[in-house]
């Protein structure tokens, strides 16, 4: 697979003869090494659940921000380089507010995702000499974007290449393959939000190395009824963990 890689993999601007840009593919590896994140979409709303890989018990778990609110109706969970995730989420936040400023309406979930994916091709925005000049490398993060708009609850996944796809349920990160297999078994189109909450944490419990508790996972949801994106308090997460097998 990496046959030609020693010749064509250094430059991010270089295609290999097979038509691959290795630097971008290597960026995907950054996501594959990172903590697992799961998103499940139901008719009632979307659930996001992430593993917080805490390197030591001396670290304050509340300082690890893997799930970020983008606007009242949309949020994202990240897997990959944390700094890149914050940059992309902040960009999305500014986009939603500027859209509201100009058009007096919330930005649609797909449009939010598109604005994030658009940054990937240029490694950023702006031009040389400005405060927001582009990076010299691809973003090393995948985001699960969960939101609710007039088209109902939606889940999108972005990647370092700038692609985004809509999913019913998806797992990204180190245990993505295993998690995806678990989800595929149990996912049903007519699941309730409560069932999705339980499934997402059950899957995380199965694939995580550490024992799951309310401090090393983070959960959020967008409910169709309220249309609001909400990050769960640790007590709520604890209640769900108590129901797991």
């Amino acid at each position, binding site marked *: 697979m990496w046959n030609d890689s020693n010749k064509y993999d250094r430059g991010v601007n270089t295609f290999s003869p097979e038509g691959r840009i290795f630097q971008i593919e290597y960026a995907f590896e950054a996501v594959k090494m990172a903590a697992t994140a799961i998103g499940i979409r139901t008719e009632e709303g979307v659930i996001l659940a992430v593993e917080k890989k805490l390197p030591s018990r001396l670290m304050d778990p509340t300082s690890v921000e893997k799930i970020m*609110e*983008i*606007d009242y109706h949309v949020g994202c969970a990240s897997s990959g380089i944390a700094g890149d995730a914050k940059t992309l989420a*902040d*960009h999305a*936040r*500014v986009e939603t*507010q*500027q859209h*509201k*400023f100009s058009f007096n309406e919330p930005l649609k979930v797909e449009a939010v995702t598109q604005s994030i994916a658009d940054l990937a091709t240029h490694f950023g*925005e*702006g*031009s040389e*000499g*400005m*405060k*927001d000049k582009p990076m010299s490398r691809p973003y090393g993060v995948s985001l699960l974007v969960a939101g609710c708009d007039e088209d109902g609850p939606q889940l999108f996944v972005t990647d370092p290449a700038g692609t985004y796809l809509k999913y019913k349920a998806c797992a990204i990160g180190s245990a993505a393959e295993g998690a995806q297999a678990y989800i595929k078994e149990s996912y049903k189109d007519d699941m309730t939000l409560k069932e999705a909450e339980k499934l997402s944490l059950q899957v995380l419990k199965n694939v995580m190395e550490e024992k799951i508790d309310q401090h090393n996972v983070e959960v959020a949801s967008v409910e169709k009824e309220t249309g609001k994106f909400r990050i769960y308090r640790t007590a709520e997460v604890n209640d769900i963990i108590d129901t797991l097998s």
Partner: protein
Amino acid sequence: MDFGNDLDFLDQPEFGEPDFFTKAPIELMGPTLGLDIHQNEADFEEADINEDIGEIKSEGFCFKLAPDECPSEFARSLKHLGPKLADFKHGTTTLAFEYQDGIIVAVDARATQGAFIASNKVRKVIEINEYLLGTMAGGAADCQFWERYLAMQCRIYELRNSEKISIAAASKILADICYSYRGYGLSMGTMVAGSDLKKGAQLFYVDNDATRVRGQLFSVGSGSPFAYGVLDTNYKWDLTTEEAIALGIRAISSATHKDSASGGVVRVYHVNNQGGWTKIHDQLDVNEDHYKFENSKGLRGDGKEGFGKLKL
């Protein structure tokens, strides 16, 4: 093209062409504003603001300036060349005061163009967000646009910091914008009234010179001297909400009856100490209340109040 300080540019054949005016990019205003808009390249290509200022890339909001090297000079020279052209009188009465249970904001609703009453239904209180109100005096567009922009900055602050912005910071954002545009002809005399859970309700006065002061009682506009008269006589910190609302209405009402540039209806808002505001009166007709006030003073308007009281 050197225009100097005359108005001949209006006769130039290229007047009105998109490239005719120089563009003032919001980048010029420095990092304080932090705007990141990526607009359509076709409309806002990298434009230079004339060579004297140097190369500044233009992105996002672009405000066309008067075609002059020094816009503040241009603004001043207009006063001689065309006395009525850019005369923004603050024809209005707006007031706000803090008291024990929050802040009362009361405004009139009249817009005048010289002696012509353009509207009696203007909304001079701008609902910035659920916990901030801004009043409008001076240029309506300036107030509306920048207070809407302030709403955007407050929301971005909330998202980035996971907590609501303080009223002091919000009013500072607006004042800093005014400072950036000093001399460019902004006309705004506004009061920022808001409430947060840490400090309760707070009131700031911000104007186009970038003056920003915290205070307990302000009135802005051509009718403000009349409003101050009523307010200063009856104001106490310990007013009840009912009394405070009545005072606000009374002050605006008096001002509208003495100042021709104020009138229409009275709108009243109450900012509470718990991080929110409510609209108390959407449109209270001053004419109806005027006679009630007069009667309460013992005046019937028929000039016969003294009849039967003479002792001969």
